[in-house]
């Protein structure tokens, strides 16, 4: 099958998932259901695109197909930042801020922190896969233990503020920040789109990119910043889903082979929308909440991760 056929197929499945999500099992008046589900659908689609784009970008600048921002601890860092904010400024204080302002500040803080930590890491150790995996695990554990340490000292009333972001959830999506997450995502996606040809060259490897007149270092930093913004969007809406990005990127690479980000990025986005919106529709409407989607995704994604790591080790 040509890539064009596959893209059309993916667009169709994504659209079908969205239509099913909006129309299946409606028991209330349409005038209520459409805006209510519409907001949730918009949020899910934002999450889907944010996760797929940040994963593809991260894999390009680290030259691998196994690591993702979530596996490297980006989501955990977001929750740590939120928790620290509550710890130092108090949940009540944070509640006085509009949620949008909190979201914007946390996003930018995450982008800068990600830039600092992972930028340094990339420059120091290059792209040694094993070292990156180890560092990711250590970062993840460190961020999570710092988070739970802080959470233990927080006033139980204030704890409820961060409890919402600490666990993956697709059923109760907080749509309050939709109107600020939407422009943030769009701006980030536009910035990514401007880089797509350079990303193609960077993906060829350092030496080849340098031969063709592209140096990866500055681009890596720009990309890390954008990854931070996109991870903020997805974590703010649905919390940490560790293996979602990996699952989507792997599915995309199985479905089509292309060295071009102008193909890979939209394809991954469509796969992501299909998996998230379609998966949520099936669990919510067909199986009526039997199992949370996050758990299903993490189980399947976790298996994919293991397979990839084992295959990578035996190479």
């Amino acid at each position, binding site marked *: 099958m040509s890539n064009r056929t596959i893209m059309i197929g993916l667009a169709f499945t994504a659209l079908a998932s969205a239509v099913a999500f909006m129309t299946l099992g409606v028991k209330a008046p349409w005038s209520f259901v459409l805006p209510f589900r519409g907001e949730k659908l918009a949020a899910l689609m934002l999450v889907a695109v944010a996760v797929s784009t940040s994963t593809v970008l991260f894999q390009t600048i680290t030259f691998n197909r196994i690591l993702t921002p979530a596996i490297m601890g980006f989501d955990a860092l977001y929750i740590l930042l939120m928790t620290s904010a509550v710890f130092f400024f108090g949940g009540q204080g944070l509640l006085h801020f509009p949620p949008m302002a909190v979201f914007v500040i946390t996003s930018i803080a995450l982008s800068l922190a990600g830039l600092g930590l992972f930028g340094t890491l990339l420059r120091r150790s290059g792209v040694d896969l094993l070292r990156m995996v180890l560092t990711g695990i250590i970062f993840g554990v460190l961020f999570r233990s710092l988070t739970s340490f802080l959470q233990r000292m927080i006033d139980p009333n204030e704890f409820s503020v961060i409890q919402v972001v600490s666990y993956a959830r697709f059923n109760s999506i907080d749509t309050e920040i939709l109107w600020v997450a939407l422009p943030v995502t769009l701006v980030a996606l536009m910035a990514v789109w401007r880089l797509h*040809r350079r990303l193609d060259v960077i993906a*060829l*490897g350092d*030496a*080849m990119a340098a031969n063709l*007149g592209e140096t990866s270092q500055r681009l890596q930093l720009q990309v890390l910043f954008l990854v931070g913004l996109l991870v903020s969007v997805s974590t703010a809406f649905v919390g940490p889903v560790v293996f979602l990005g990996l699952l989507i990127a792997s599915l995309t690479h199985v479905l089509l082979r*292309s060295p071009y980000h102008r193909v890979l990025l939209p394809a991954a986005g469509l796969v992501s929308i299909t998996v998230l919106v379609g998966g949520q529709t099936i669990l919510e409407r067909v199986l009526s909440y039997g199992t949370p989607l996050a758990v299903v995704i993490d189980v399947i994604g976790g298996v994919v991760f293991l397979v990839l790591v084992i295959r990578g080790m035996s190479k």
Partner: protein
Amino acid sequence: MIGPNGAGKSTLLSLVARLLPLQSGSVTVDGLKIGEVANDILAKNLAILSQSNVIAPRLTIEQLISFGRYPHSQGRLRDDCRAMIEQAIARFELGHLRHRMLDTLSGGQRQRALVAMTYAQDTDYLLLDEPLNNLDISASRSLMQLVRQMVDQNGKTAVVVLHDINYACAYADQIVVLTDGRLIAQGSPQTVITEALLAQAFDTDAQVGTHNGRPVVFA
């Protein structure tokens, strides 16, 4: 360019192509100051194939060669780019392989595709770091002949790091010998490749004969 392992051949090429930063001194290629020139200008004038090409296998040969036009097109291929890509494919006889993925090719075919990419890059200078590594005699000869053609017919300057001195003797106009980061001899194969030089540079007593007027080293 020849010399024993660790003589600094790859390092020299990397410095010339700015894959490594200069710690001191300066490099000038045809009036271009390598330390100062902009990335795209450098990429339009000088192409390098280093040993460590970790090429993403998800490329077809045609896509790889198209990337050679990147310094000129920034990824937006115009008609002249397409013509150049077709010319490279024809010249390197890759037409029947153009839609094959790189990871399905033999070492020789892949190396030929990489050199074809630098042909499409259309630079005056071409630096090749041990391009014959892991190639059999037929692939090696055909690659060296193609490089020789690019020099003779397109007026390019090719600097090739080689381990097999006989390939250097057979195809080079000039041989440069490095040991321990120093240039110890430079000139035509006939003047440079002597038993005395082999003893000095490689610490070996290999014998030197001649064939078709060019020196031949007997292992």
